[in-house]
């Protein structure tokens, strides 16, 4: 018993058989290729330097990346770095911490890892391309609400403590990077910087300050800055070119 004969179209005649819609197959491999990550130190800063200098630096950076794997990571991911240390017992020292800042361009690019060890907050600034680094492992790959987590210095220490023997959390290639929308609670004021002011543009703090203090902080806002055309630096085309160059060289 089929209902095909009962199907009525607008004309009153028996309707034409319409096959069910085809299932959409999402190819995970193609999704993976679509997500490109170019490390921020490859993008040259705005200035009057000759592009040849950036080209020479990029060649050296690519050369180092061929020999030593520098994984993709963001501010807010937890890393473990082993460096060669002439004064340590086994000549290597391992440090685990959350990346709070990525600075510098070119070969001098740095990242700062923070952790609280036995009650003492420790921050170490490593150079990405230093030959003394033996290995960089990403224990947890995630992003946070801000690009700069320096406010963790004034936050409660529980937000900066990470287990030194943490197991790496697996992350599949094609999945998007998870954004940790954690809003951090701060220690009582005074802080090292006035993080409530709009110049720092921090979204990751749960401010417990009264309304008047927040309104007073907005006095220092500069709403004209986002419309300033001289400050615009559109890196999309530069990024495209550099991404092509870097991926070709690394895949050779």
């Amino acid at each position: 018993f089929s209902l095909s004969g009962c199907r009525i179209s607008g004309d009153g005649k028996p309707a034409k058989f319409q096959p069910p819609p085809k299932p959409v197959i999402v190819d995970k491999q193609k999704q993976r290729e679509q997500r490109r990550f170019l490390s921020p130190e490859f993008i040259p800063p705005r200035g009057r330097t000759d592009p040849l200098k950036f080209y020479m630096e990029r060649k050296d950076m690519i050369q180092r990346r061929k020999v030593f794997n520098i994984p993709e990571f963001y501010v807010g991911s937890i890393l473990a770095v082993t460096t060669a240390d002439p004064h340590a017992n086994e000549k290597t020292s391992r440090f685990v911490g959350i990346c709070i800042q990525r600075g510098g361009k070119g070969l001098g690019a740095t990242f700062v890892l923070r952790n609280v060890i036995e009650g003492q907050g420790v921050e170490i600034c490593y150079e990405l391309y230093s030959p003394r680094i033996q290995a960089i492992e990403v224990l947890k790959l995630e992003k946070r609400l801000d690009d700069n987590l320096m406010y963790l210095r004034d936050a409660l220490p529980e937000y900066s403590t990470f287990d030194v023997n943490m197991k790496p959390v697996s992350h599949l290639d094609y999945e998007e990077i998870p954004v940790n929308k954690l809003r951090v609670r701060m220690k009582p004021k005074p802080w090292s910087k006035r993080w409530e002011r709009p110049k720092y543009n921090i979204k990751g703090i749960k401010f417990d300050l009264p309304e008047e203090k927040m309104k007073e902080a907005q006095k220092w806002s500069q709403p004209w800055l986002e419309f300033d055309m001289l400050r615009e630096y559109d890196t999309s085309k530069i990024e495209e070119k550099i991404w092509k160059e870097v991926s070709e060289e690394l895949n050779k």
Partner: protein
Amino acid sequence: MMPIWTKSGKRHAVTLLKVQDCHVLRYVSKEESDGKTSKLLVGGKNASPFSKSESAMEIFREAGVPRKQKVTTFNVTDDALIKPGTPLYAAHFRPGQFVDVTAKTIGKGFQGVMKRWGFKGQPASHGQTKTHRRPGAISTNKASKVYRGKKMPGKMGNVYRTSFGLKVWRINTKHDIIYVNGSVPGHKNCLVKVKDSILPTCKDYNKNPPFPTFFADGDEELPEDLYDEDIFQFTDPSVTYA
């Protein structure tokens, strides 16, 4: 400026100098130059010939070379003379040599005595009336005059200065770039004169250079990059301490 690491893991900062269209322009013999050594005029970066007078363009026409933006003289011994018109390359220097770099410093304009000469000035408060960055006293009572050369405000910068004894870490023969230790006077992309060092402690390192210069059409084939022995090359694995 770029960082560079040695094989022991130590980090140094390095300036990149590009050798752009350098040609030898003229040979001035010992008698003409009224000195003890003969001179060679060398020209740097190419520039347009239209803004110079005909008489100034004569030197370039004789050497058969486009007009150069900068012309410098080098005191040369008689056995190191080069024919005018030969191009000079970065491979004239080798890693491990020491070099003096001369250039015009960045012009800062009319500057006060604190920035120009490093005077301490006066305190910001505690009763100072309109005196915070002034030189104070300029001479004594007994002298009853101001000595010549007294440090006073004036135009600062835009003067030729030399940094001595800079080590050459690396030479790129393909793009003609010299990697020189430390900083160099002048702004980004300014014209610079690079010479063998005159320091007595650097005499030993400057032996066996390519003499009189490196000729590109010669038989010698150099690799694209020449490194000093101590440099960490990025093709090597990471540094370890045994």
